[in-house]
């Protein structure tokens, strides 16, 4: 009843230019290219009468219907955009069978890995803050995301914003998680149940960060606590976040907001430190420049006067800057 090799199914092999039309709503979609495929089916970029859409075509009525139910609910989470918005739901009839599909908003973006390749490591922290903000809203609405992993996340923009796709794992709170991936699943690591609760998602969110530092992933060893502790310590990217990641790993955060706020605090701290460092070095640099320039004129000028001059100079520039801002 289940195809053994999904990639060979007609659902995964629609050609560019092919047109499909729903059985119920009769809306036409012209396939542009395949965006990806997974266990439930394939996702295509397609042209509809109202512009580009992402079309997810599945094999299994039940999983597609479940996802549609979740996407419908999302549009009801007050004013906030969580996940792609749902556009149309229908069946595609072919000679070999009837396949359920739905059209959703096409999110144009990069995968998390591609995005991070070209950017400095602090972006990882910022994206995680964004993700935790969305998770908090989702949790407040009574859902857990479930299958949180880089494959199910995209970075759209600029302005850059992390967005999730694939709501196949999204589960009503207190029920059993519908879909998950071992590496991001606390059950696999022996760190708790598969019950939908905020701490389940926060564990996965932490593991998304770990995965960014170790793109090859890894499997469980006999003492996962020790294993993770060492992996956090040995990665320069993870080390600053080690404390937060450890709390998420141990299910210590009850709400996404708690984790988010600690992360924001940490990122600000880091910021201050690097800003302080920067300031010092620019001041030093300008002092040196001034000194050499002035030393050509009056070598006897005292150091205190010099610094005073520099500060006055900086202050005047700053005044002009403020004026420029307010005008």
């Amino acid at each position, binding site marked *: *009843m*289940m195809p*053994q090799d999904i990639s060979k199914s007609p659902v995964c092999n629609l050609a560019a230019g092919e047109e499909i039309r729903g059985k*119920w709503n009769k809306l036409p979609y012209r396939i542009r290219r395949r965006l990806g495929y997974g266990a439930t089916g394939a996702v295509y970029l397609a042209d509809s009468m109202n512009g580009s859409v992402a079309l997810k075509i599945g094999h299994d*009525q*039940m999983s597609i*219907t*479940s996802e*549609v*139910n979740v996407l*419908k609910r999302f549009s009801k989470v007050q004013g906030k955009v969580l996940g792609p918005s749902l556009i149309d*739901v*229908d*069946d595609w009839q072919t000679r070999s069978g*009837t396949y*359920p599909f739905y059209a959703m908003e096409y999110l144009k973006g990069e995968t998390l890995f591609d995005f991070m390749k070209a950017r400095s490591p602090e972006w990882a922290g910022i994206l995680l803050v964004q993700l935790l903000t969305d998770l908090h809203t989702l949790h407040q609405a009574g859902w857990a995301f479930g299958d949180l992993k880089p494959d199910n996340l995209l970075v759209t923009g600029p302005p850059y914003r992390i967005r999730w796709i694939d709501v196949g794992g999204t589960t009503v709170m*207190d*029920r*059993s*998680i519908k879909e998950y991936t*071992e590496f991001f699943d606390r*059950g*696999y690591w022996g760190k708790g*149940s*598969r*019950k939908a609760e905020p701490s389940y998602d926060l564990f996965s969110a932490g593991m998304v960060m770990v995965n960014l530092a170790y793109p090859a992933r890894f499997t469980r060893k006999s003492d996962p606590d020790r294993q993770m502790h060492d992996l956090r310590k040995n990665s320069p990217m993870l080390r600053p976040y080690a404390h937060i990641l450890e709390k998420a790993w141990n299910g210590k955060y009850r709400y996404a907001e708690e984790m988010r706020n600690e992360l924001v605090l940490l990122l600000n701290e880091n910021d201050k430190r690097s800003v302080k460092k920067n300031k010092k070095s620019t001041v030093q640099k300008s002092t040196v420049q001034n000194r050499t320039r002035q030393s050509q004129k009056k070598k006897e000028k005292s150091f205190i006067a010099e610094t005073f001059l520099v500060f006055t100079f900086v202050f005047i520039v700053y005044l002009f800057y403020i004026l420029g801002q307010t005008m």
Partner: protein
Amino acid sequence: MHKKGTLRQILLITDGCSNQGEDPVAMAALAHEQGISVNVIGVLNEDAPEYHRQGLKEVEDIAMAGGGISQVVYARQLAQTVKMVTQKAMAQTIKGVVNAELQQILGSKSTMDDLPPDKRGEVMEVVDEMGETMNLEVLILIDASGSMEDKMLTVQESLLDLSISLNSRIGDNEFAIFAFPGKKKEVDELLSWSSRLDSIGKVFSKLSLGGITPTGPAIKEGIAAFARKRSSKRSFLSDDAPGYIEESGM
């Protein structure tokens, strides 16, 4: 509407052909008649997949007769498969029940798939709700013939993982584990009905692997174990829908 009933499943994990006793396909049909679905996972050997392919036909036939699902995999995929098969089998049984209800309401041969997409969504919510809240009884039948020896640790881990998933549900679960061939009999009970599988390691250490593969008698013994459980509860209920016993009205 909230319903609480019990789903009854046999999960057979085997790597080869049966060679002793009753026809396993017939026994699976017998189980199905009594509201127990029979699901089968065929485990392939990494070194000699071709040798075991002969057994696949039987794997499929047993599941079909037993109203269940079959899947053939390599040992390393066992954990995911055990869960997937159990959950799909639950969903399939529930869907069968829901479809039967729909036919009563809408008449003729209409099923969930014939409904327009928005109505389907509502039915799906009922299916989800039932899958989450119904009680589940899973009887696991493990092929302990010699060729399975190197796969036993994986089987054990897979079952532990299954219990993590199922115990995260709202409904109750009970598991029993039988192995065949047994030490002196055709089938041995390794673990009698229990809601936890934490102590499963000890159970597996009792196991001794034998030469014959009495799959048919094992399924028959499984049916008997369900019957004993039911009569011990002294609540013999009507079992009309396959794998599904209604305990309070829909």
